[in-house]
């Protein structure tokens, strides 16, 4: 039937260059070439993509792997079918004048963290480092960070979570000299977890029609990513076109695209099993309060990327 070619993708944030590959594929007709009719649903502060998937509001979602694995443990069997982001853009950004030089210096400091399923990497990291997160003298005080970098600028927090491609740039935009900041990239700290991957519900993957659809989707999406990486300015322009709020600036999106390209560089879309295992180990290592309690089984499939790459 006609639905065989319909795909709805739930993003995990509002329209921005973070999702350029998909918008480019849509705009350039790559999906169309594959015979697909793709709808992209932007996310927002109040949207949990796994929940949307569970409710049937979307066929596939983008999600951070910690969040997806946690959802899996909660009984929502989501499966990674492709992983366009190969490295993590997450980092902590601190004021240098707070005296923070290493992870140990976090003790007694206030740190802004995103919640809503995005807190897992931080919590794993802290528990691996043996730093309690419940305030107190030698633990960190955690703030639930809003959607902006104000807690840092107002010095309410000593450090905040930033993405290399977005919030960090915003801090600089506010006039802050990079020399006044110290950053801790999760990649560098060895606690990186996989970010924006493509997930589908397990039950759907038993359906060959769905699988075929996904193969075509991933192939077209990766083509979009390739194009976006190579044509940063144009990709930013395309994002601007799809941004319905009319509030984004092209310069910011171009910068974001430049940073995003570093994270997707070299990805074929296929999940790197080693990176997967590293993510799982990080999450399992969470001491008394691990994000996931058991080695996940069947949390990914390479079937689709295998087919797409042929």
């Amino acid at each position, binding site marked *: 039937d006609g639905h065989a070619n319909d795909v709805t993708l739930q*993003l995990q944030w*509002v*329209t921005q260059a973070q999702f350029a590959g998909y918008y480019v594929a849509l705009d350039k007709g790559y999906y169309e070439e594959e015979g697909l009719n793709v709808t992209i*649903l*932007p*996310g*927002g*502060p*109040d*949207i*949990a993509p796994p*929940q*949307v998937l*569970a*409710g*049937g*509001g979307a066929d596939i979602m983008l999600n951070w792997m910690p969040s997806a694995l946690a959802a899996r443990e909660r009984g929502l069997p989501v499966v990674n079918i492709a992983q366009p982001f190969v490295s993590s853009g997450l980092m902590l950004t601190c*004021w240098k*004048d707070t005296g923070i030089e290493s992870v140990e210096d976090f003790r007694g400091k206030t740190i802004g963290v995103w919640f809503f399923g995005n807190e897992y990497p931080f919590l794993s990291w802290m528990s691996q480092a043996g730093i309690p997160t419940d305030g107190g003298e030698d633990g960190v005080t955690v703030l639930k960070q*809003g*959607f*902006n*970098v104000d807690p840092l*600028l*107002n*010095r309410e927090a000593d450090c905040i979570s930033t993405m290399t491609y977005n919030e960090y740039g*915003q801090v600089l*935009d*506010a*006039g*802050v*000299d990079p020399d006044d900041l110290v950053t801790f990239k999760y990649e560098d700290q060895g606690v990186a977890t996989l970010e924006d991957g493509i997930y589908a519900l397990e039950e759907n993957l038993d359906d060959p029609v769905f699988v075929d659809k996904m193969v075509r989707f991933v192939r077209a999406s990766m083509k979009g990513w390739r194009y976006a990486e190579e044509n940063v300015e144009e990709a930013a322009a395309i994002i601007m076109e799809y*941004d*319905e*709020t*009319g*509030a*984004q*600036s092209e310069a*910011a999106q171009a910068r974001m695209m430049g940073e995003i390209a570093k994270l997707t560089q070299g990805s074929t879309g296929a999940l790197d099993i080693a990176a997967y295992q590293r993510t799982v180990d990080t999450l399992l290592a969470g001491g008394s309060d691990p994000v996931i309690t058991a080695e996940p089984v069947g949390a990914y499939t390479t079937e689709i990327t295998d087919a797409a790459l042929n």
Partner: protein
Amino acid sequence: MRSALPIATVVVVIFAIWTAAVVPMNIHLTADLAGRQDIAVTPETPRERQEVGAISLALQNTSIWGMTYTLDRPNLPSPHQVAAELYKSVFTVAPTSRRSLIYHAWVTLSATLLGFLIGAAAGILLAVGIVYNRTMDKAVMPWAITSQTIPILALAPMVIVMLGSIGVQGLLPKAIISAYLSFFPVVVGMVKGLRSPDHMQLDLLHTYNASGPQAFWKLRLPGSMPYLFASLKIGISASLVGAIVGELPTGARAGFGARMLVGDQYGQPILTWAALFGAAITAALLVAAISLIERKTLGRMGMRMAA
């Protein structure tokens, strides 16, 4: 329009307080900025300044007051910044452009109006049920009150997902959230209104041996009109708030809520403020529209307006 002068006075006072507050509210950010541009500020380092209160910092650095009014991402934008942004996004771009606040007003407005329609209709029906059915009166009213103590922003994503799972998307989910906020004032007002005819009025119809429906259409309904309009005015601003709240869990694609959110996330507070004022102005216009309909309707019905 005899109240134009008093309103203007109050507005001027508020603007004066606002303008005066801009300096202390923004002084820390401004001092940081000035410090980075090698303008002399006391104390010299951001850390030291953190220990100084806003007012005394402002008094120590009178030379940078001017800068507090022109920051790109102020804590408190100055009135003229907000006014300029409003002007820019209302008058200098085509209303169909995504950069136009009119466009976003329309997006929010469409959900508001649909939600208001649903909410008002549900409120009226519920009120009729409460007035005519003793069981409903006793069972439903406490729950209607309770329903309003539940934070809508917590319910909103669930509503969206549940509706999404049965295939309802687009305008309707937002409208339903908006309806959730607007039905309550309508129920309360309408119950009061339908019960406003006194015993004598009801007895009069009884002496005519009038039927139940006749009593409703000829007495209770027209008698409830002033109450209905009073609660519709509250309901429509609640609807607008609901529509804006509903924009966040629906992908914040467009509308006042999306503008506020995006302005906040990308460090453009002036955008947020402009959207905020845009929303309040829209609410005022909606209330004015209802007042106009009220005056027309009640006028035609021959009822005098209470001042």
